[in-house]
């Protein structure tokens, strides 16, 4: 369990770093790790006297200041009032396209997932979309998705939104909007660049020397294991309890 907690803590701290500088981040329902990352950034900014961070957690009463119904998040993104959001995907390809619909021939998919949710829209409108998918395997990271729920690059139309980074259980990639693909930034211990190559079905840029994803420092861990998991408990009681028990 301690390894599991450590894995999650690295993800949370990495997300906080990826969000640095934003004013408003929206987090989907059932996303405790992104939510914890956002809360960590908020707490850190507060302690450092940096600008406040607003967090919207969909479906949470305490972390919502929306009063115009289900459309408000989407309108808000269209207005440029949402700086960051998280998307996952049953498949993600090397061009950053994501598939939330299914594999095989549409519509009678071999494997069917829930559906595209708001991805087709938000990918265009939120400047810093963080692709977050814990499972790092060739079946997830494919050369070409079977169905494009949301496309990462559309040179035919102006857009402010798109992928910023891809974070998995094993590694962190940057997305290069110029090149239109991913570049490996760091690998989480104990994995190696070879593990990443083996488990990634798409091509990506790899630097000569690949960094290790930094573990959170002591101050960050203290903040996380105290205040952040307490804050998280309101929305994700089971997750927060597990993390606290492991401590």
């Amino acid at each position, binding site marked *: 369990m301690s390894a599991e907690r450590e894995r999650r803590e690295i993800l949370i701290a990495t997300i906080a770093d990826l969000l640095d500088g934003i004013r408003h981040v929206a987090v989907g*329902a*059932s996303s405790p790790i992104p939510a914890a990352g956002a809360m960590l950034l908020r707490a850190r900014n507060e302690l450092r006297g940096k600008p406040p961070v607003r967090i919207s957690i969909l*479906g949470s*009463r305490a972390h919502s200041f*929306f*009063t*115009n*119904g*289900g*459309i408000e998040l*989407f309108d808000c993104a*269209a207005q440029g009032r949402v700086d960051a959001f998280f998307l996952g995907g049953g498949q993600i390809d090397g061009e950053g396209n994501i598939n*939330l*619909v*299914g594999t095989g021939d*549409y*519509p*009678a*998919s071999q494997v*069917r*997932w*829930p*559906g*595209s*949710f*708001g*991805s*087709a*829209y*938000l*990918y*265009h*409108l939120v400047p810093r979309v963080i692709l977050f998918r814990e499972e790092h395997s060739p079946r997830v990271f494919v050369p070409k998705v079977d*169905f*494009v*729920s*949301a*496309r990462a*690059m*559309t040179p*035919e*139309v*102006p*857009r402010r*939104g798109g992928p910023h980074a891809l974070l998995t259980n094993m590694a962190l990639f940057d997305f290069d909007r110029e090149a239109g693909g991913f570049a490996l930034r760091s690998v989480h211990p104990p994995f190696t660049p070879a593990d990443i190559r083996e488990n990634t079905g798409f091509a990506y840029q790899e630097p000569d020397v690949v960094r290790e994803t930094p573990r959170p420092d002591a101050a960050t861990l203290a903040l996380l294991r105290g205040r952040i998991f307490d804050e998280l408990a309101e929305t994700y009681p089971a997750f927060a309890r597990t993390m606290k028990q492991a401590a």
Partner: protein
Amino acid sequence: MTEIVTLESLAARVTPGQSLAIPVDGSGVAMTATAALLEAGVRDLKLICVPISGLQADLLIGAGAVASLETSAVSLGEAGAAPRFTAGIKSRAFTMRDSTCPAIYAGLLAAQKGVPFMPIAGIIGSDLLNVRSDWQVIDSPIGEARKVVVVPAISPDVALFHAPEADRDGNVRIGRHRELADLAYASKRTLVTVERIIDRNLLDGEDSAAGVLPSLYVDTIAVAERGAWPLALWDEYPADEAEIARYAAMARSEDGFRAYLSAFLTHRRQVA
């Protein structure tokens, strides 16, 4: 004017072949009314999830009541995939109309405003545009030369949802769940179940009135206590996670689903 009737009478307002719009889990899903609909033998529904659904859609699909499904997703959330939805996709039990959340709201908004279509940001590049032949990409007729997606108006025959309370004039408290108003504005008829009917007029007072769907948009109301169970109703009561997990497990097989459904319908009769 709004009629206040029994749950059975409310269920009888939905007839085979109609399009039925329902809200997202937790926003006010009329689960008890869904049982009453199934009991009444509703079928051939054109189900429109605003903008996604879970248990309610899965039950209607499993019971064979759905002819077509327009949604941005069907999922049981923490309890995982929606088994009857997944099985129905494989067996092509219904016509699937995949969407994306804001496109469903945009379609409803077009109906609310009496226009045939609504432009919407984003979407370009998505394969949804290939499978939704009713969506178009046009050159913006105004302003900077750019492509814009347009989607057709969605005018459901019936909207169905559950809310904490209504008053005797038929005004319904929706709080900040304005997606319920979006549903009602766009729909030809709106059916609402409520936990209770109250005596004071909900439109009295600025704070109270701000969270009200006026009776003008509400055709039929029935009382159904704990009418969203096993789903949550705002902060009135939480979801019954154990029950939803039980459903998720049983509904993996057709037989298990039948057993669950039978018990679910029996439960409604006992509560009523």
